[in-house]
Protein backbone atom coordinates (compact mmCIF):
# COMPACT_ATOMS: atom_id res chain seq x y z
CA UNK A 1 0.00 0.00 0.00
CA UNK A 2 2.89 2.35 0.80
CA UNK A 3 4.41 1.43 -2.54
CA UNK A 4 1.14 2.34 -4.22
CA UNK A 5 1.02 5.64 -2.38
CA UNK A 6 4.45 6.61 -3.63
CA UNK A 7 3.59 5.57 -7.16
CA UNK A 8 2.18 8.37 -9.32
CA UNK A 9 -1.47 7.78 -10.21
CA UNK A 10 -0.58 7.99 -13.87
CA UNK A 11 1.55 4.87 -13.54
CA UNK A 12 -1.28 2.76 -12.13
CA UNK A 13 -3.17 0.88 -14.84
CA UNK A 14 -6.89 1.50 -15.09
CA UNK A 15 -7.72 -2.15 -14.41
CA UNK A 16 -5.70 -2.05 -11.19
CA UNK A 17 -7.48 1.13 -10.11
CA UNK A 18 -10.83 -0.55 -10.66
CA UNK A 19 -9.69 -3.60 -8.73
CA UNK A 20 -8.44 -1.38 -5.90
CA UNK A 21 -11.78 0.38 -5.73
CA UNK A 22 -13.67 -2.91 -5.63
CA UNK A 23 -11.41 -4.39 -2.95
CA UNK A 24 -11.57 -1.18 -0.90
CA UNK A 25 -15.36 -1.09 -1.06
CA UNK A 26 -15.54 -4.74 -0.01
CA UNK A 27 -13.13 -4.11 2.89
CA UNK A 28 -15.08 -1.06 4.07
CA UNK A 29 -18.35 -3.01 3.98
CA UNK A 30 -16.79 -5.96 5.83
CA UNK A 31 -15.19 -3.75 8.47
CA UNK A 32 -18.35 -1.79 9.12
CA UNK A 33 -20.32 -5.04 9.39
CA UNK A 34 -17.83 -6.49 11.88
CA UNK A 35 -17.83 -3.30 13.98
CA UNK A 36 -21.62 -3.27 14.00
CA UNK A 37 -21.67 -6.92 15.10
CA UNK A 38 -19.17 -6.17 17.84
CA UNK A 39 -21.23 -3.26 19.10
CA UNK A 40 -24.39 -5.37 19.05
CA UNK A 41 -22.56 -8.23 20.81
CA UNK A 42 -21.14 -5.81 23.37
CA UNK A 43 -24.60 -4.46 24.10
CA UNK A 44 -25.95 -8.02 24.40
CA UNK A 45 -23.06 -9.05 26.69
CA UNK A 46 -23.62 -5.96 28.82
CA UNK A 47 -27.33 -6.79 29.06
CA UNK A 48 -26.56 -10.41 29.95
CA UNK A 49 -23.93 -9.27 32.46
CA UNK A 50 -26.38 -6.89 34.11
CA UNK A 51 -28.96 -9.67 34.26
CA UNK A 52 -26.37 -12.13 35.58
CA UNK A 53 -25.15 -9.65 38.20
CA UNK A 54 -28.71 -9.03 39.28
CA UNK A 55 -29.39 -12.75 39.51
CA UNK A 56 -26.06 -13.35 41.26
CA UNK A 57 -26.72 -10.63 43.80
CA UNK A 58 -30.14 -12.02 44.54
CA UNK A 59 -28.82 -15.60 44.82
CA UNK A 60 -25.83 -14.40 46.86
CA UNK A 61 -28.20 -12.66 49.17
CA UNK A 62 -30.04 -15.92 49.48
CA UNK A 63 -26.94 -18.13 49.69
CA UNK A 64 -24.39 -15.49 50.80
CA UNK A 65 -21.81 -16.88 48.20
CA UNK A 66 -20.04 -14.54 45.67
CA UNK A 67 -20.40 -15.45 41.99
CA UNK A 68 -17.04 -15.92 40.17
CA UNK A 69 -18.21 -16.90 36.64
CA UNK A 70 -19.82 -13.59 35.77
CA UNK A 71 -16.76 -11.54 36.74
CA UNK A 72 -14.46 -13.77 34.59
CA UNK A 73 -16.75 -13.39 31.58
CA UNK A 74 -16.94 -9.60 31.82
CA UNK A 75 -13.17 -9.34 32.34
CA UNK A 76 -12.37 -11.45 29.23
CA UNK A 77 -14.82 -9.60 26.99
CA UNK A 78 -13.49 -6.21 28.09
CA UNK A 79 -9.94 -7.37 27.26
CA UNK A 80 -10.67 -8.85 23.78
CA UNK A 81 -13.08 -6.26 22.43
CA UNK A 82 -10.69 -3.25 22.39
CA UNK A 83 -8.13 -5.34 20.52
CA UNK A 84 -10.68 -6.31 17.87
CA UNK A 85 -11.96 -2.77 17.59
CA UNK A 86 -8.44 -1.36 17.19
CA UNK A 87 -7.73 -3.93 14.45
CA UNK A 88 -10.98 -3.16 12.73
CA UNK A 89 -10.25 0.56 12.91
CA UNK A 90 -6.85 -0.03 11.31
CA UNK A 91 -8.52 -2.11 8.60
CA UNK A 92 -11.08 0.63 8.03
CA UNK A 93 -8.34 3.25 7.75
CA UNK A 94 -6.46 1.07 5.28
CA UNK A 95 -9.63 0.52 3.24
CA UNK A 96 -10.40 4.21 3.14
CA UNK A 97 -6.83 4.91 2.09
CA UNK A 98 -7.10 2.32 -0.67
CA UNK A 99 -10.42 3.82 -1.71
CA UNK A 100 -9.13 7.37 -1.72
CA UNK A 101 -5.83 6.80 -3.54
CA UNK A 102 -7.37 6.18 -6.97
CA UNK A 103 -9.63 9.20 -6.55
CA UNK A 104 -7.08 11.66 -5.24
CA UNK A 105 -6.19 12.88 -8.71
CA UNK A 106 -9.66 12.55 -10.18
CA UNK A 107 -10.82 15.77 -8.49
CA UNK A 108 -12.90 18.25 -10.45
CA UNK A 109 -12.62 21.89 -9.40
CA UNK A 110 -15.09 24.32 -10.89
CA UNK A 111 -15.03 28.09 -10.38
CA UNK A 112 -17.97 29.96 -11.81
CA UNK A 113 -18.48 33.61 -12.60
CA UNK A 114 -21.97 34.74 -13.56
CA UNK A 115 -21.48 38.50 -13.24
CA UNK A 116 -21.42 39.08 -16.98
CA UNK A 117 -24.37 36.87 -17.83
CA UNK A 118 -27.36 38.53 -19.42
CA UNK A 119 -29.96 39.58 -20.32
CA UNK A 120 -31.35 37.76 -17.30
CA UNK A 121 -29.36 37.88 -14.08
CA UNK A 122 -28.39 34.53 -12.63
CA UNK A 123 -29.77 34.15 -9.12
CA UNK A 124 -27.59 32.70 -6.40
CA UNK A 125 -29.62 29.50 -6.13
CA UNK A 126 -29.51 28.99 -9.89
CA UNK A 127 -25.77 29.59 -9.91
CA UNK A 128 -25.24 26.95 -7.24
CA UNK A 129 -27.39 24.47 -9.15
CA UNK A 130 -25.57 25.05 -12.42
CA UNK A 131 -22.16 24.81 -10.77
CA UNK A 132 -23.15 21.58 -9.00
CA UNK A 133 -24.60 19.97 -12.13
CA UNK A 134 -21.76 21.07 -14.40
CA UNK A 135 -19.25 19.59 -11.97
CA UNK A 136 -21.26 16.36 -11.82
CA UNK A 137 -21.31 16.31 -15.62
CA UNK A 138 -17.52 16.39 -15.77
CA UNK A 139 -17.17 13.75 -13.09
CA UNK A 140 -19.56 11.56 -15.07
CA UNK A 141 -17.76 12.29 -18.33
CA UNK A 142 -14.39 11.36 -16.82
CA UNK A 143 -15.82 8.18 -15.33
CA UNK A 144 -17.58 7.19 -18.54
CA UNK A 145 -14.53 7.66 -20.73
CA UNK A 146 -12.09 6.07 -18.29
CA UNK A 147 -14.13 2.96 -17.64
CA UNK A 148 -16.17 3.00 -20.86
CA UNK A 149 -19.35 3.18 -18.81
CA UNK A 150 -22.04 4.78 -20.94
CA UNK A 151 -24.60 4.68 -18.11
CA UNK A 152 -22.84 7.55 -16.36
CA UNK A 153 -23.76 9.87 -19.22
CA UNK A 154 -27.53 9.48 -19.14
CA UNK A 155 -28.31 11.92 -16.33
CA UNK A 156 -26.07 14.94 -16.89
CA UNK A 157 -26.02 15.00 -20.70
CA UNK A 158 -28.79 15.22 -23.31
CA UNK A 159 -29.13 15.73 -27.03
CA UNK A 160 -25.92 16.30 -29.04
CA UNK A 161 -23.61 16.24 -26.02
CA UNK A 162 -24.96 12.86 -24.92
CA UNK A 163 -24.91 11.37 -28.42
CA UNK A 164 -21.32 12.47 -28.98
CA UNK A 165 -20.11 11.07 -25.67
CA UNK A 166 -22.04 7.81 -26.17
CA UNK A 167 -20.36 7.48 -29.53
CA UNK A 168 -17.02 8.13 -27.79
CA UNK A 169 -17.62 5.32 -25.34
CA UNK A 170 -18.76 2.82 -27.95
CA UNK A 171 -15.80 3.50 -30.25
CA UNK A 172 -13.39 3.30 -27.31
CA UNK A 173 -14.89 -0.06 -26.37
CA UNK A 174 -14.41 -1.31 -29.92
CA UNK A 175 -10.66 -0.67 -29.81
CA UNK A 176 -10.08 -1.22 -26.07
CA UNK A 177 -9.13 2.42 -25.61
CA UNK A 178 -9.78 4.64 -22.62
CA UNK A 179 -9.26 8.28 -21.77
CA UNK A 180 -8.48 9.80 -18.40
CA UNK A 181 -9.18 13.37 -17.37
CA UNK A 182 -7.07 14.01 -14.27
CA UNK A 183 -6.66 17.07 -12.06
CA UNK A 184 -9.47 18.97 -13.70
CA UNK A 185 -9.73 22.71 -13.11
CA UNK A 186 -12.57 24.60 -14.77
CA UNK A 187 -12.89 28.37 -14.89
CA UNK A 188 -16.44 28.85 -16.05
CA UNK A 189 -18.00 32.12 -17.08
CA UNK A 190 -21.68 32.48 -17.91
CA UNK A 191 -21.91 34.65 -21.01
CA UNK A 192 -25.61 34.38 -21.82
CA UNK A 193 -28.71 33.60 -19.80
CA UNK A 194 -31.97 33.69 -21.74
CA UNK A 195 -34.76 36.09 -20.70
CA UNK A 196 -36.99 33.18 -19.70
CA UNK A 197 -34.17 31.22 -18.06
CA UNK A 198 -34.50 28.29 -20.43
CA UNK A 199 -30.90 28.21 -21.70
CA UNK A 200 -27.54 29.34 -20.39
CA UNK A 201 -24.29 29.51 -22.32
CA UNK A 202 -21.04 28.98 -20.48
CA UNK A 203 -17.42 29.48 -21.49
CA UNK A 204 -15.20 27.01 -19.73
CA UNK A 205 -11.43 27.35 -19.73
CA UNK A 206 -10.47 23.91 -18.49
CA UNK A 207 -7.07 22.50 -17.77
CA UNK A 208 -6.43 18.88 -17.00
CA UNK A 209 -4.05 16.01 -17.53
CA UNK A 210 -5.28 14.09 -20.55
CA UNK A 211 -4.21 10.49 -20.81
CA UNK A 212 -5.15 8.15 -23.60
CA UNK A 213 -4.60 4.45 -23.05
CA UNK A 214 -4.66 1.51 -25.38
CA UNK A 215 -5.53 -1.59 -23.35
CA UNK A 216 -3.91 -0.09 -20.26
CA UNK A 217 -0.81 1.10 -22.12
CA UNK A 218 -0.33 4.85 -21.98
CA UNK A 219 -0.05 6.23 -25.51
CA UNK A 220 -0.64 9.91 -24.83
CA UNK A 221 -0.10 11.98 -21.70
CA UNK A 222 -0.44 15.72 -21.93
CA UNK A 223 -1.46 18.62 -19.76
CA UNK A 224 -3.98 20.47 -21.89
CA UNK A 225 -5.78 23.77 -21.65
CA UNK A 226 -9.10 23.54 -23.44
CA UNK A 227 -11.82 26.05 -24.20
CA UNK A 228 -15.37 24.74 -24.17
CA UNK A 229 -18.58 26.41 -25.24
CA UNK A 230 -21.33 24.83 -23.18
CA UNK A 231 -25.10 25.04 -23.48
CA UNK A 232 -27.08 23.97 -20.43
CA UNK A 233 -30.85 23.80 -20.08
CA UNK A 234 -33.01 23.16 -17.05
CA UNK A 235 -34.55 19.69 -16.68
CA UNK A 236 -37.11 18.64 -14.09
CA UNK A 237 -34.91 19.19 -11.04
CA UNK A 238 -31.42 19.82 -12.36
CA UNK A 239 -29.47 21.37 -15.22
CA UNK A 240 -28.30 19.25 -18.13
CA UNK A 241 -25.49 19.76 -20.62
CA UNK A 242 -26.92 19.98 -24.13
CA UNK A 243 -23.79 21.07 -25.99
CA UNK A 244 -20.14 20.66 -25.05
CA UNK A 245 -17.96 21.92 -27.84
CA UNK A 246 -14.23 22.61 -27.73
CA UNK A 247 -13.06 25.73 -29.54
CA UNK A 248 -9.54 27.06 -30.15
CA UNK A 249 -10.29 30.27 -28.22
CA UNK A 250 -13.16 32.41 -26.99
Amino acid sequence: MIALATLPITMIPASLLTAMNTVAMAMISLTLTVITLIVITKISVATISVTTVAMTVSSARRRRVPSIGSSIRSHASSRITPRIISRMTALLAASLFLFCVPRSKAAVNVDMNVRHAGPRAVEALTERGILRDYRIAWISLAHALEFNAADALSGPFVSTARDTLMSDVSSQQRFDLSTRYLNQNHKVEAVYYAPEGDVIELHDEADYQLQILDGGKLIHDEHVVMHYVVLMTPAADHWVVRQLQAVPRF
Partner: protein
Amino acid sequence: MSWSTNTAWANRRMRLLFHACLGIAAVVGVASGVCAAQDLRAPSAVTAGEPATISTTGGGKATFYLVGPGVSNKSDVSLGNGIPLRAQDLRAAGQYFAILCSDICHSASFYVSPARPADLAFLVHPSRVPVAQSDAVSGVALAFDPFGNLVLDSGTVDFQLTAGKASLLSQSVPAHDGIAWFRTTSGKTAGPLQVVASIGELSARRNVQEVASEPCNLRITGQRTKDGLVVETEPVHDCGGNPVPDGTIVSFTATDASGKSTVDAPIKRGVARAEIAASGPVVVSVASGVAMGNELRIGGGQ
Protein backbone atom coordinates in the same frame (compact mmCIF):
# COMPACT_ATOMS: atom_id res chain seq x y z
CA MET B 1 46.78 12.06 -15.65
CA SER B 2 48.07 13.90 -18.71
CA TRP B 3 47.34 13.07 -22.33
CA SER B 4 50.27 12.78 -24.72
CA THR B 5 50.27 11.85 -28.37
CA ASN B 6 53.98 11.14 -28.43
CA THR B 7 53.98 7.94 -26.36
CA ALA B 8 53.53 4.48 -27.85
CA TRP B 9 50.37 3.68 -25.83
CA ALA B 10 48.82 7.07 -26.59
CA ASN B 11 47.92 5.99 -30.10
CA ARG B 12 45.92 3.04 -28.76
CA ARG B 13 44.11 5.26 -26.25
CA MET B 14 43.32 7.84 -28.87
CA ARG B 15 41.88 5.13 -31.10
CA LEU B 16 39.73 3.88 -28.22
CA LEU B 17 38.50 7.40 -27.57
CA PHE B 18 37.82 7.88 -31.25
CA HIS B 19 35.80 4.64 -31.40
CA ALA B 20 33.85 5.63 -28.30
CA CYS B 21 32.98 8.96 -29.87
CA LEU B 22 31.93 7.19 -33.05
CA GLY B 23 29.67 4.87 -31.02
CA ILE B 24 28.01 7.74 -29.20
CA ALA B 25 27.48 9.59 -32.47
CA ALA B 26 25.95 6.47 -34.01
CA VAL B 27 23.54 6.00 -31.06
CA VAL B 28 22.53 9.67 -31.19
CA GLY B 29 22.08 9.42 -34.94
CA VAL B 30 19.94 6.31 -34.75
CA ALA B 31 17.83 7.81 -31.95
CA SER B 32 17.24 11.00 -33.83
CA GLY B 33 16.51 8.96 -36.94
CA VAL B 34 13.87 6.99 -35.06
CA CYS B 35 12.32 10.19 -33.75
CA ALA B 36 12.30 11.79 -37.14
CA ALA B 37 11.00 8.64 -38.73
CA GLN B 38 7.50 8.92 -37.30
CA ASP B 39 6.66 12.55 -37.28
CA LEU B 40 3.15 13.60 -38.24
CA ARG B 41 1.57 16.84 -39.28
CA ALA B 42 -2.06 17.64 -38.59
CA PRO B 43 -4.17 19.68 -40.98
CA SER B 44 -4.40 23.36 -40.14
CA ALA B 45 -8.11 23.89 -40.79
CA VAL B 46 -10.79 21.24 -40.97
CA THR B 47 -14.53 21.73 -41.36
CA ALA B 48 -16.98 19.30 -39.83
CA GLY B 49 -18.10 16.56 -42.19
CA GLU B 50 -15.23 17.03 -44.64
CA PRO B 51 -12.38 14.57 -45.11
CA ALA B 52 -8.81 15.53 -44.21
CA THR B 53 -5.34 14.05 -44.40
CA ILE B 54 -2.57 13.77 -41.86
CA SER B 55 0.90 13.67 -43.38
CA THR B 56 3.63 11.48 -41.91
CA THR B 57 7.35 11.19 -42.45
CA GLY B 58 9.69 8.23 -42.17
CA GLY B 59 9.17 4.63 -43.13
CA GLY B 60 7.87 1.33 -41.75
CA LYS B 61 4.67 0.43 -39.99
CA ALA B 62 2.99 2.24 -37.11
CA THR B 63 -0.27 2.34 -35.25
CA PHE B 64 -2.40 5.40 -35.78
CA TYR B 65 -5.00 6.63 -33.30
CA LEU B 66 -7.58 9.34 -33.87
CA VAL B 67 -9.27 10.48 -30.67
CA GLY B 68 -11.80 13.29 -30.74
CA PRO B 69 -15.40 14.14 -29.91
CA GLY B 70 -17.49 11.13 -30.81
CA VAL B 71 -14.66 9.14 -32.33
CA SER B 72 -11.83 6.86 -31.19
CA ASN B 73 -10.15 4.99 -34.00
CA LYS B 74 -7.13 2.75 -34.22
CA SER B 75 -5.50 1.51 -37.43
CA ASP B 76 -2.22 0.26 -38.84
CA VAL B 77 -0.56 2.66 -41.23
CA SER B 78 2.56 2.88 -43.37
CA LEU B 79 4.78 5.80 -42.48
CA GLY B 80 5.64 8.24 -45.18
CA ASN B 81 2.17 8.20 -46.65
CA GLY B 82 -0.69 10.52 -45.84
CA ILE B 83 -3.27 9.12 -43.46
CA PRO B 84 -6.77 9.84 -44.77
CA LEU B 85 -9.34 10.87 -42.19
CA ARG B 86 -12.87 9.99 -43.24
CA ALA B 87 -15.59 12.62 -43.32
CA GLN B 88 -17.79 10.60 -40.97
CA ASP B 89 -15.01 10.60 -38.36
CA LEU B 90 -14.84 14.40 -38.39
CA ARG B 91 -18.49 15.28 -37.92
CA ALA B 92 -18.28 16.72 -34.42
CA ALA B 93 -16.65 20.10 -33.95
CA GLY B 94 -13.89 20.24 -31.37
CA GLN B 95 -10.34 19.19 -30.71
CA TYR B 96 -8.95 15.96 -32.13
CA PHE B 97 -5.74 14.15 -31.21
CA ALA B 98 -3.81 12.22 -33.84
CA ILE B 99 -1.34 9.80 -32.27
CA LEU B 100 1.20 7.73 -34.12
CA CYS B 101 2.96 4.92 -32.28
CA SER B 102 5.73 2.56 -33.34
CA ASP B 103 8.60 2.39 -30.84
CA ILE B 104 7.47 5.61 -29.26
CA CYS B 105 4.36 7.72 -29.73
CA HIS B 106 4.07 11.12 -31.34
CA SER B 107 0.96 13.22 -31.37
CA ALA B 108 -0.54 16.27 -32.98
CA SER B 109 -3.85 17.97 -32.37
CA PHE B 110 -6.19 19.94 -34.57
CA TYR B 111 -9.57 21.60 -34.38
CA VAL B 112 -12.61 20.82 -36.46
CA SER B 113 -14.84 23.85 -36.91
CA PRO B 114 -18.61 23.68 -37.45
CA ALA B 115 -20.02 23.60 -40.99
CA ARG B 116 -22.56 26.08 -42.36
CA PRO B 117 -25.85 26.52 -40.47
CA ALA B 118 -28.43 23.94 -41.42
CA ASP B 119 -30.83 24.08 -38.53
CA LEU B 120 -32.16 26.90 -36.43
CA ALA B 121 -33.25 26.24 -32.87
CA PHE B 122 -35.71 28.96 -32.00
CA LEU B 123 -37.14 29.28 -28.51
CA VAL B 124 -40.01 31.75 -28.16
CA HIS B 125 -41.85 32.63 -24.95
CA PRO B 126 -44.62 32.69 -23.93
CA SER B 127 -47.12 30.70 -25.98
CA ARG B 128 -50.00 32.95 -24.86
CA VAL B 129 -49.53 36.56 -23.98
CA PRO B 130 -51.88 39.40 -23.03
CA VAL B 131 -51.83 42.36 -25.42
CA ALA B 132 -49.85 45.53 -24.72
CA GLN B 133 -47.50 43.98 -22.16
CA SER B 134 -44.03 45.46 -22.19
CA ASP B 135 -41.09 43.06 -22.77
CA ALA B 136 -43.57 40.18 -22.78
CA VAL B 137 -42.40 38.31 -25.89
CA SER B 138 -38.85 37.03 -26.18
CA GLY B 139 -37.02 34.70 -28.52
CA VAL B 140 -33.62 33.04 -28.68
CA ALA B 141 -32.13 31.66 -31.90
CA LEU B 142 -29.20 29.24 -32.08
CA ALA B 143 -27.78 28.00 -35.36
CA PHE B 144 -26.55 24.44 -35.76
CA ASP B 145 -24.78 22.75 -38.65
CA PRO B 146 -26.03 19.43 -40.16
CA PHE B 147 -24.09 17.48 -37.51
CA GLY B 148 -25.52 19.27 -34.49
CA ASN B 149 -22.53 21.54 -33.87
CA LEU B 150 -23.28 25.02 -32.58
CA VAL B 151 -22.26 27.53 -35.25
CA LEU B 152 -20.54 30.25 -33.27
CA ASP B 153 -20.09 32.73 -36.10
CA SER B 154 -23.51 32.37 -37.66
CA GLY B 155 -23.70 36.04 -38.63
CA THR B 156 -26.85 38.09 -38.32
CA VAL B 157 -30.25 36.72 -37.42
CA ASP B 158 -33.35 38.53 -38.69
CA PHE B 159 -36.36 38.54 -36.40
CA GLN B 160 -39.80 39.37 -37.85
CA LEU B 161 -42.94 39.67 -35.73
CA THR B 162 -46.25 40.14 -37.51
CA ALA B 163 -49.76 40.25 -36.09
CA GLY B 164 -52.25 39.82 -38.92
CA LYS B 165 -50.88 42.09 -41.62
CA ALA B 166 -49.24 44.53 -39.23
CA SER B 167 -45.51 44.26 -38.63
CA LEU B 168 -44.76 44.44 -34.95
CA LEU B 169 -40.97 44.09 -35.08
CA SER B 170 -38.30 43.72 -37.73
CA GLN B 171 -34.85 43.51 -36.28
CA SER B 172 -31.45 42.22 -37.41
CA VAL B 173 -29.41 40.95 -34.49
CA PRO B 174 -25.77 39.86 -34.80
CA ALA B 175 -25.20 36.53 -33.07
CA HIS B 176 -22.72 36.50 -30.21
CA ASP B 177 -21.18 33.14 -29.37
CA GLY B 178 -23.78 31.48 -31.56
CA ILE B 179 -26.79 33.12 -29.91
CA ALA B 180 -29.07 35.92 -31.09
CA TRP B 181 -32.12 37.06 -29.14
CA PHE B 182 -34.84 39.67 -28.95
CA ARG B 183 -37.39 40.91 -26.45
CA THR B 184 -40.35 43.09 -27.28
CA THR B 185 -43.74 44.37 -26.22
CA SER B 186 -46.77 42.36 -27.27
CA GLY B 187 -49.12 43.77 -29.90
CA LYS B 188 -52.35 45.68 -29.34
CA THR B 189 -54.72 43.27 -31.04
CA ALA B 190 -55.69 39.81 -29.85
CA GLY B 191 -54.96 37.00 -32.27
CA PRO B 192 -52.04 34.96 -33.56
CA LEU B 193 -48.61 36.57 -33.57
CA GLN B 194 -46.19 35.10 -36.08
CA VAL B 195 -42.54 35.13 -35.01
CA VAL B 196 -39.90 34.28 -37.60
CA ALA B 197 -36.13 34.00 -37.20
CA SER B 198 -33.99 33.64 -40.31
CA ILE B 199 -30.35 33.32 -41.29
CA GLY B 200 -30.00 33.55 -45.03
CA GLU B 201 -32.41 31.04 -46.50
CA LEU B 202 -32.78 29.21 -43.22
CA SER B 203 -35.77 30.19 -41.14
CA ALA B 204 -37.84 29.02 -38.20
CA ARG B 205 -41.42 30.09 -37.51
CA ARG B 206 -43.29 30.12 -34.20
CA ASN B 207 -46.78 31.27 -33.20
CA VAL B 208 -47.74 33.17 -30.09
CA GLN B 209 -51.40 33.63 -29.22
CA GLU B 210 -52.07 37.18 -28.14
CA VAL B 211 -55.11 37.38 -25.90
CA ALA B 212 -57.08 40.23 -24.41
CA SER B 213 -55.65 41.81 -21.34
CA GLU B 214 -57.52 42.50 -18.09
CA PRO B 215 -61.17 43.63 -18.46
CA CYS B 216 -61.61 47.35 -18.61
CA ASN B 217 -64.69 49.59 -18.03
CA LEU B 218 -66.96 46.89 -16.63
CA ARG B 219 -70.59 47.95 -16.74
CA ILE B 220 -73.56 46.03 -15.39
CA THR B 221 -77.32 46.24 -15.71
CA GLY B 222 -79.89 44.44 -13.60
CA GLN B 223 -83.56 43.89 -12.92
CA ARG B 224 -85.57 42.45 -10.10
CA THR B 225 -87.33 39.09 -10.45
CA LYS B 226 -89.79 37.44 -8.12
CA ASP B 227 -86.98 35.46 -6.40
CA GLY B 228 -84.37 38.21 -6.31
CA LEU B 229 -82.57 39.97 -9.11
CA VAL B 230 -80.69 39.21 -12.31
CA VAL B 231 -77.55 41.17 -13.18
CA GLU B 232 -75.38 40.96 -16.29
CA THR B 233 -72.45 42.79 -17.76
CA GLU B 234 -72.25 44.55 -21.04
CA PRO B 235 -69.86 42.81 -23.45
CA VAL B 236 -66.56 42.67 -21.58
CA HIS B 237 -63.51 44.15 -23.29
CA ASP B 238 -59.98 45.05 -22.31
CA CYS B 239 -58.74 48.62 -22.54
CA GLY B 240 -57.69 48.03 -26.17
CA GLY B 241 -61.20 46.95 -27.16
CA ASN B 242 -60.35 43.24 -27.43
CA PRO B 243 -63.16 40.98 -26.18
CA VAL B 244 -62.15 39.22 -23.00
CA PRO B 245 -62.19 35.45 -23.61
CA ASP B 246 -65.07 33.31 -22.40
CA GLY B 247 -64.44 31.62 -19.10
CA THR B 248 -62.93 34.68 -17.47
CA ILE B 249 -64.52 35.01 -14.03
CA VAL B 250 -66.55 38.07 -13.10
CA SER B 251 -67.55 38.57 -9.46
CA PHE B 252 -70.87 40.19 -8.53
CA THR B 253 -71.29 41.38 -4.95
CA ALA B 254 -74.74 42.26 -3.58
CA THR B 255 -75.18 44.19 -0.32
CA ASP B 256 -78.61 44.41 1.28
CA ALA B 257 -80.06 44.71 4.78
CA SER B 258 -79.20 41.08 5.58
CA GLY B 259 -75.53 41.48 4.62
CA LYS B 260 -73.19 40.85 1.70
CA SER B 261 -73.21 37.96 -0.78
CA THR B 262 -70.92 37.27 -3.73
CA VAL B 263 -71.56 35.29 -6.92
CA ASP B 264 -68.77 34.34 -9.36
CA ALA B 265 -69.87 33.89 -12.95
CA PRO B 266 -67.81 33.03 -16.04
CA ILE B 267 -68.09 35.11 -19.18
CA LYS B 268 -70.22 33.33 -21.82
CA ARG B 269 -70.47 34.77 -25.31
CA GLY B 270 -68.86 37.96 -24.14
CA VAL B 271 -71.08 38.66 -21.12
CA ALA B 272 -71.29 37.44 -17.54
CA ARG B 273 -74.68 36.90 -15.92
CA ALA B 274 -75.78 36.05 -12.38
CA GLU B 275 -78.94 35.55 -10.37
CA ILE B 276 -78.80 36.92 -6.83
CA ALA B 277 -81.33 36.14 -4.08
CA ALA B 278 -82.03 39.45 -2.37
CA SER B 279 -84.95 41.43 -1.07
CA GLY B 280 -85.36 45.11 -0.36
CA PRO B 281 -82.92 47.75 -1.55
CA VAL B 282 -79.72 46.20 -2.91
CA VAL B 283 -76.35 47.60 -4.06
CA VAL B 284 -74.60 45.40 -6.61
CA SER B 285 -70.94 45.90 -7.55
CA VAL B 286 -68.85 44.02 -10.12
CA ALA B 287 -65.17 43.16 -10.46
CA SER B 288 -62.92 41.00 -12.61
CA GLY B 289 -59.27 40.58 -11.88
CA VAL B 290 -58.02 43.98 -10.78
CA ALA B 291 -60.75 45.90 -12.63
CA MET B 292 -63.79 47.29 -10.82
CA GLY B 293 -67.04 48.19 -12.56
CA ASN B 294 -69.97 50.46 -11.82
CA GLU B 295 -72.30 50.07 -8.81
CA LEU B 296 -75.96 49.28 -9.43
CA ARG B 297 -78.60 50.34 -6.89
CA ILE B 298 -81.91 48.52 -7.08
CA GLY B 299 -84.70 49.66 -4.80
CA GLY B 300 -87.12 47.36 -2.93
CA GLY B 301 -90.07 48.24 -5.14
CA GLN B 302 -88.31 47.68 -8.43
